[in-house]
C-alpha cells in the first residue's frame, strides 16, 4: 500500500481546512485557496500521477466549497471531519492501485469490475458531476454574457445527446482528442463524460432552485456588504440546493441505475457480471435458463440501494425542513 502516505496528507489537509475554515485569517485567503486548488485539479488531470490523487485533490476543492456552510458549529465540524476521514478512506480503498501495476486486473484490463465498478461510477460520477453542475448552473444564471453563453451551450449540447452516445464517445473518440502521450483508463474516460452528462442535468435542477430564491435575499446580502462569492456560497446556494433535494436525489438514483449502461462499451459492471458468471454451454452442467435467477438478484440489489437512498434522503429532508421559510 504505497498510497498510504499520500492519503495521510489528504486527511491532514482536510482536517486543517475543517479546523480553520471559520477562522478569520483563513477566511481572508479562502477564495484564493479554492481557486488555486481548482486550477491544480484541472492541471493534474493531464499529469502522470495516480488517479487516486487526482480524485483526492478534487475532494479538497469540494470540501472548501461546502465547509463554510457546515463547519460553522463545533458539532458540524466534528461531523464533517468524520465524513472526510471515512470518505477519503473509502475512496482510497476503492481506487487503491489504480493506474499502478499493482492494481487488480479484470479480464477487460481495467482495475475494477462488478459491484465496485457500479459503485465507483455512481458515487464518483455524482461526486464529480455535482460541483460541475453547480458551476454550470451559476454560469447559466450569470450576468456575464460570455459565461452564460458557454454554460448554456455546454448544458444544451450535452443534454441533447443520449448517454449511450456519450459512452461510445468515451470509449472510442475521447483518446483522439487528448494530447499525444496522454492516455486515460476507460473508466476515467467514462467518469469524464458522466461528469458532463449528469452535471448538465444537475445544473438544470439547481438552476430551478436558484430561480426560487427571491430577489430580496440577494438585496439583503448586498445591503449587509457581502461580496458576490459570499452571497452565493452563504446565502443563495444553501437555500437553492435545499429546495431541489428531491429532484437531485432523483438524478442521483438515475445516475446509479444508468451506470449499468457501461456494459455496452465492454466494462463489467454488476449487471454484466450477473450474466458473465454463468458458465458457457461447454461446461458439463447445463446452466441454460438460470440467468433469470441472477437477474432477479441484481434487480433486488439495485432496488435495495435505491430504496435505502431515498429513505435516507427523506430523513435529511425532514431534518432540514425544520424552520424552513
Amino acid at each position, binding site marked *: 500500500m504505497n498510497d498510504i502516505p499520500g492519503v495521510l496528507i489528504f486527511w491532514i489537509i482536510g482536517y486543517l481546512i475543517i479546523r480553520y475554515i*471559520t477562522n*478569520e485569517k483563513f*477566511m*481572508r485567503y479562502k477564495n484564493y485557496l479554492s481557486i488555486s486548488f481548482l486550477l491544480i485539479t484541472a492541471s493534474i488531470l493531464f499529469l502522470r500521477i495516480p488517479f487516486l490523487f487526482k480524485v483526492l485533490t478534487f475532494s479538497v476543492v469540494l470540501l472548501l466549497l461546502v465547509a463554510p456552510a457546515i463547519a*460553522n458549529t463545533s458539532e458540524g465540524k466534528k461531523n464533517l471531519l468524520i465524513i472526510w476521514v471515512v470518505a477519503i478512506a473509502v475512496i482510497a480503498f476503492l481506487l487503491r492501485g489504480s493506474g499502478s501495476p499493482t492494481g487488480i486486473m479484470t479480464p477487460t484490463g481495467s482495475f475494477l469490475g462488478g459491484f465496485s465498478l457500479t459503485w465507483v461510477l455512481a458515487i464518483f460520477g455524482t461526486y464529480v458531476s455535482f460541483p460541475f453542475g453547480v458551476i454550470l448552473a451559476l454560469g447559466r444564471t450569470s450576468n456575464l454574457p460570455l459565461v452564460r453563453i458557454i454554460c448554456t451551450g455546454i448544458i444544451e449540447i450535452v443534454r441533447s445527446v443520449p448517454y449511450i452516445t456519450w459512452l461510445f464517445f468515451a470509449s472510442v473518440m475521447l483518446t483522439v482528442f487528448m494530447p499525444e502521450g496522454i492516455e486515460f483508463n476507460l473508466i476515467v474516460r467514462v467518469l469524464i463524460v458522466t461528469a458532463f452528462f449528469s452535471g448538465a442535468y444537475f445544473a438544470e435542477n439547481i438552476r430551478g432552485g436558484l430561480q426560487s430564491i*427571491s430577489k*430580496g*435575499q440577494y*438585496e*439583503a446580502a*448586498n*445591503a*449587509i*456588504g*457581502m*461580496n458576490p462569492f*459570499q452571497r452565493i456560497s*452563504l*446565502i443563495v446556494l*444553501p*437555500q437553492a440546493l*435545499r429546495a431541489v433535494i428531491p429532484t437531485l436525489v432523483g438524478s442521483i438514483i438515475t445516475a446509479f441505475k444508468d451506470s449499468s449502461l457501461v456494459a455496452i462499451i465492454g466494462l463489467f459492471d454488476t449487471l454484466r457480471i450477473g450474466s458473465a458468471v454463468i458458465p458457457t454451454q461447454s461446461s458439463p452442467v447445463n446452466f441454460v435458463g438460470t440467468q433469470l435467477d441472477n437477474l432477479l438478484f441484481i434487480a433486488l440489489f439495485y432496488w435495495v440501494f435505491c430504496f435505502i437512498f431515498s429513505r435516507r434522503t427523506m430523513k435529511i429532508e425532514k431534518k432540514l425542513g*425544520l*424552520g*424552513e*421559510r
Partner: protein
Amino acid sequence: MSIIITKNVKKWFGDFQALDGISMEIKEKEVVVICGPSGSGKSTFIRCINRLEQHQEGDIIVDGIELTNDLKNIDAIRSEVGMVFQSFNLFPHLTVMQNITLAPIWVRKKTRTEAEEKAMELLERVGIPEQAEKFPGQLSGGQQQRVAIARALAMEPKIMLFDEPTSALDPEMIKEVLDVMKELAQSGMTMIVVTHEMGFAKEVCDRVIFFDEGKLVEENNPEDFFNNPKSDRTKLFLSQIL
C-alpha cells in the same frame, strides 16, 4: 455637516422616469421621513443610496464617498449604511443568531465570540433575546422585522435606511417595531424612513420630505408639514391619508 448629499439624481426604468432631479442633504443624527403616494419614487430613492438601484444621472455622496461604478466605493458605502426591508428578507436557512452574526463575521472579519456577544446585546435592545436560536420562520412578523433591524445594526452602520418597515405587518405588531425605531432615533442614529406611519413622523422625525411622481415636492419640519403644508399636492395627500 451633511452625511448624505444628493444632487439632481435621475433614474429611469425603461421609459418610466422614477426619479426626476432629487437634490437634498441629510445631516448627521438627523431622522428624515419620506412619504408620498405609491409609485412616487421614494423607495427607489433610498435604494439608490446604497446602490441596490443604480441612478443614471446626478451625484450621490455618502459620508464623503461618491457613489460611482467603483466597486470599492459601493462596498465602503454598504458597510456604513444599514437597510431594513418591507419584506424583512431574513435568511430563512439560518437561525436568528446566525442571521445577525453572518455579516460581522464574514464582512467585518470579527471573531465568532465577539460577534455573538454583540448580537446578544442587539437582540436585547430590540427586546427578543430569547428568540436567538429560533429560525425566522418560527417568529411573528414584528419579531422578524426586529431581527432584521438587529441584523442591520450588527454592522455598526452610521446611517440606517428603512424601506416601509411596517407595511407588511399586522396592526398590533406595528407598534413594537416603531418603538424600536424610536429608541434608535433617540440614540442619535442618522435615519431615513420611508413610511406611511404619520404618527411616527409627527413624533420622532426632524424633517418630512414629500415625493410625488419622482419629484421632491415638499421638504418641511413635521409641525408645519402636517399643519400648514406649502404645496397643494401635499394638502391633497394629507387629506386622503389622515
